């Protein structure tokens, strides 16, 4: 894919099914429920280039999903607004109401877009702290697109040595294309194969494809091992 696909109009449904049709039946889910895309942006400035990148990735993902016949709902969360709540959750051990609502949105998303500024060679502390206060099994199996912004392109591999291992640990499914936006990316036109718009389109397409292939996210169920089984596991041979 070398160019960003256009947002399809209602009349383009036929073309969409033709594109996906050759792969069998890629999307089993009910057309009635919109897929939920949540983008988490850890930028600190206002306006924030991290937020801008999150917005563009979210919109591109929604466009891909729409094109594939999946209505989608997009939510963008700025961690800046939750900075105090996140610090409080770290010292008390539980999230307050506002943060809990955000965590529920993130862990209930069908697809997650996680965007951090790169500070001191890695994700920002605020970004990491947010994922530290989420249960470490809550994102298992969830499609995730990782992205970052930075003051220089020399730090772009932070996506691969910091963000990708974090989400691998959380057993999320991270799409192959990670998107890094350096200052020069914002100033280039959208005409080259490797430019920012193309990378956004490719990453969003990968996320949308994964989201279309998996069953809808359901809230984590607390499973209890029956007590007899717990006892039996301890019985000496």
């Amino acid at each position: 894919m070398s160019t960003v696909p256009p947002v399809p109009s209602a009349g383009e449904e036929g073309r969409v099914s033709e594109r996906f049709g050759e792969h069998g039946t890629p999307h089993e889910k009910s057309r009635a429920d919109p897929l939920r895309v949540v983008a988490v942006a850890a930028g600190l400035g206002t306006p924030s280039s991290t937020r801008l990148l999150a917005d563009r990735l979210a919109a591109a993902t929604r466009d891909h999903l729409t094109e594939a016949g999946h209505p989608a709902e997009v939510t963008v969360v700025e961690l800046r607004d939750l900075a105090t709540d996140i610090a409080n959750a770290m010292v008390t051990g539980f999230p307050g109401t506002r943060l809990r609502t955000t965590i529920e949105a993130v862990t209930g998303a069908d697809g997650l877009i996680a965007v951090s500024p790169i500070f001191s060679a890695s994700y920002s502390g605020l970004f990491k702290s947010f994922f530290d206060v989420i249960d470490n099994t809550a994102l298992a199996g969830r499609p995730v697109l990782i992205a970052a912004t930075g003051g220089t392109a020399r730090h772009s591999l932070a996506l691969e040595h910091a963000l990708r291992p974090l989400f691998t640990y959380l057993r999320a499914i991270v799409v192959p294309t990670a998107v890094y936006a350096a200052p020069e990316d914002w100033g280039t036109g959208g005409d080259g194969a490797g430019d920012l718009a193309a990378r956004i389109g490719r990453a969003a397409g990968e996320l949308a494809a994964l989201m279309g292939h998996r069953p809808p996210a359901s809230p984590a169920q607390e499973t209890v091992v029956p007590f007899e089984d717990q006892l039996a596991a301890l019985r000496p041979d």
Partner: protein
Amino acid sequence: MQFGIFTVGDVTPDPTTGRTPSEHERITAMVRIALKAEEVGLDVFATGEHHNPPFVPSSPTTMLGHIAARTERLILSTATTLITTNDPVKIAEDFAMLQHLAGGRVDLMLGRGNTGPVYPWFGQDIRQGVPLAIENYALLHRLWREDVVDWKGRFRTPLQGFTSTPRPLDGIPPFVWHGSIRSPEIAEQAAYYGDGFFANNIFWPKEHFQRLIGLYRERYAHYGHGTPEQAIVGLGGQVFMRRNSQDAVREFRPYFDNAPVYGHGPSLEEFMDETPLTVGSPQQVIDKTLTFREHFGDYQRQLFLIDHAGLPLKTVLEQLDLLGEEVVPVLRKEFAARRPAGVPDAPTHASLLAARDTETPAETAR
């Protein structure tokens, strides 16, 4: 319904004076608080068990034995007894002895403990926390019910022809509560045995405990001990009161802001919104406590934490006066009025003995 207090037994500096009590002062203060609890008409005193500073209560049955000798009516309990790092044989012996000395006014709450370094001090490993809790309690349960036990397990040496002495008073084991902050496995364990479940809800928001207690009630019924509504539930809650709520907030704020367990995070007001903490008038404590019943169903035991955050003994004793005079009498009346028939009280030695004797003719008293 039973009302009481539980203490962590922390030695915490008073942030308004900078003074830290000695261990001896803290231990004698805990005893004074327990005696006062009986004086003001409360039902239960429970002490924590800890093996690291800044906590003093490493030897709960020693302290409870002393309190037993100086009280008449108070039920003596723990919050919690470490079922992971204590040898179940020693728990069986210590609490049976305490039962005899206290005339049966004894129950206990089992918990795992959550501090990694403590486990190896007692030859254990925190990674085995849940299996230790399950195996140790399975043995403890037998030691109190079978006169001669042959046993083999993973975590301690086998027993051959072992009799734990003294036998429980009147052959009735102490009632057991299983305390939990987060583990569904412990709710399941409590339900399996038909024991009590104490949700120490003092820090986490209520939704979490609604799920945990809901699970316990459902599994209690599943194992045939009664209806979900008949399961035996206990709850915590922490309070600070003055007659005028503004005075309570003004006086408690420096304690809250600096306490190791509360301070340097959310504001007092945010913490009160999210947890059972109530800082205000006796009426506010009454109102908040009554909401627990709406959230968790009718329950059997309410324990308040009142000697927290480095409060001086004099202040804690004033809190007990307010609890005994203004809060608990109203709560007893209000809870009783709302409680449907068929919801039992928490078992006591007397009630368990009476139930046993109606089922089978009285045996020879031990």
